[in-house]
């Protein structure tokens, strides 16, 4: 288990560094590519927590769909690939304050939880986490209603997109 802290530190440094470059780099396509690296780092965290399904879903959704969509949007918009304007607006102080408060609150909340400093327990290797997740999503005692609400929301978004794109005759 000694390899885990080293791996975690490396991945965390990579993720945070990439996230910092997302907001500091001038070239928007480079920013999007750094964002991809940051999102990939989050996927690696899921792997380190033995949540393989979440890791793969993170890659499929965030890199495969969202990042590609963002890159498309940047490339299809004229003359914004290179941003020459100022990188901060006058409200940056307030933004910093709110971010710091929010981060402090999150850290405080995590440390309120008794399991925050516990080491990760070994998972039972016979347990199929994907099957457990699938059962939890459709069992009435667990997450059936949130799951169905989310699917209705996605369906509504899908129909809305079709309605917007519909060619009126």
């Amino acid at each position, binding site marked *: 288990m000694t390899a885990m802290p080293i791996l975690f530190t490396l991945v965390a440094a990579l993720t945070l560094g990439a996230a910092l470059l997302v907001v500091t780099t001038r070239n928007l396509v*480079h920013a999007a590519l750094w964002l991809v690296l940051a999102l990939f780092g989050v996927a690696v965290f899921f792997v380190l927590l033995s949540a393989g*399904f979440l890791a*793969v879903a993170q890659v*499929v959704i965030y*890199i495969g769909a969202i990042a*590609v969509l963002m*890159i498309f949007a940047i490339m299809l918009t004229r003359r914004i690939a290179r941003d020459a304007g100022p990188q901060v607006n006058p409200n940056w102080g307030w933004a910093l304050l709110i971010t710091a408060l929010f981060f402090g609150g999150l850290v405080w909340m995590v440390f309120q939880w008794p399991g925050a400093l516990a080491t990760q327990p070994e998972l039972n290797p016979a347990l*199929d986490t*994907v099957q457990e997740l699938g059962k939890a999503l459709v069992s009435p005692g667990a997450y059936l209603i949130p799951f169905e609400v989310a699917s209705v929301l996605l369906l509504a978004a899908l129909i809305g997109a079709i309605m917007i794109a519909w060619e009126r005759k």
Partner: protein
Amino acid sequence: MGDPVILVAKWLEQLLAGWGLSASQVNVVMTFIGVLVLAVFVLLLDIFMVWVERKVVARFQDRFGPNRLGPFGLIQPIADVIKLLIKENITPAGADRVVFNLAPIMALATVIMLWAVIPLSPTVFGSDVNVGVLYVVAIGAISTLGIIMAGWASNNKYALLGAFRAVAQVISYEVPMVISLMVPVILARTMGINSIVQAQSVWYIVMAPIAALIFLLSAIAELGRAPFDLPEGESEIVAGFHIEYTGMKFGMFYAGELLHALTMGGLFASLFLGGWRGPGAEAYPILGIIYFFIKAFFIYWVIAWVKYSLPRVRIDQMLNLNWKVLTPLALSVLIVTALLDKLLAGAPIVVYVLSLLAANLAILLTTSRLLRRYARSGRQRVAQPAPIATPERAVAISPKQNASA
């Protein structure tokens, strides 16, 4: 005796342990060696694929193909590789250097990463992750990123247009592909590819022929091979996203494409043709590797057969096939399979297989009827005489009508 790979691995493990390494250190070293061996094996296979591809296309076009260097021209690909390696590497002016050089690496690396979850035999596989099928989709998502990077960093409008086309095609065809992948997952009740292979006492192509067909078609589209090779339409956008690449950088795209075709063959073989399963494969795992590659190369040959027999489709035909045929078909097959699977729980295997096969054939028949009717109405519409200057048409495009619309 039937499993030399594991034998060698066991011997190496003992050797490393004899050198005084702890169990976890041995594990790490063995994992690295395993990754290295698999990747090198796959890349060597890739060189051989150049020869296979050229021989296959030659046979389809009634030629001999490479036949001068070595027996059957077998040394030809080595010469090709040397030629690619010593060619000059040109980076176009204004190119984004880092991204430009990263793109071919991603194109080849993502294909090699797919081999991590494809089981070669009951005992030889990279990793039996329980989300194998989804992993394949995720790696496909990363490979689209490589295409965009290549197209954008080249600083060439044809490369960018080609990348847009390629990504649009890959993303659209991912939808029916993912849905069709869900059918073997339902049948095997797991997403791990090795477990799916183990569950195939009857090959899934018998129980899910439509899903297999959809997977094959969308795999061909994802590969960007004819008839779906619009991303490299020579007459329109020269060569697509890799137009600016020279030497080995182009070679990596080329190698990635060839290997991707074989990888798709391997995936198809694992998901629908029983992978390494065959007579004696359980007792002698080395036979499993042979069975697997026979099946994978067969599917590769089918893909090549399609490529060299059909002309390129138009972009509207490509999108219509995806959104109006394959996606609804895949969804209906998924629903029917899920329902039948639930209804036939506990039924004998013969009944189960035959009713799934019958349901698939019924869906296929209905689809072909619908498609025939659609094609007929399309032909009638085109065959109708449509004079340009008729009174009704004149009214339809008059300025007054336009203003009110």
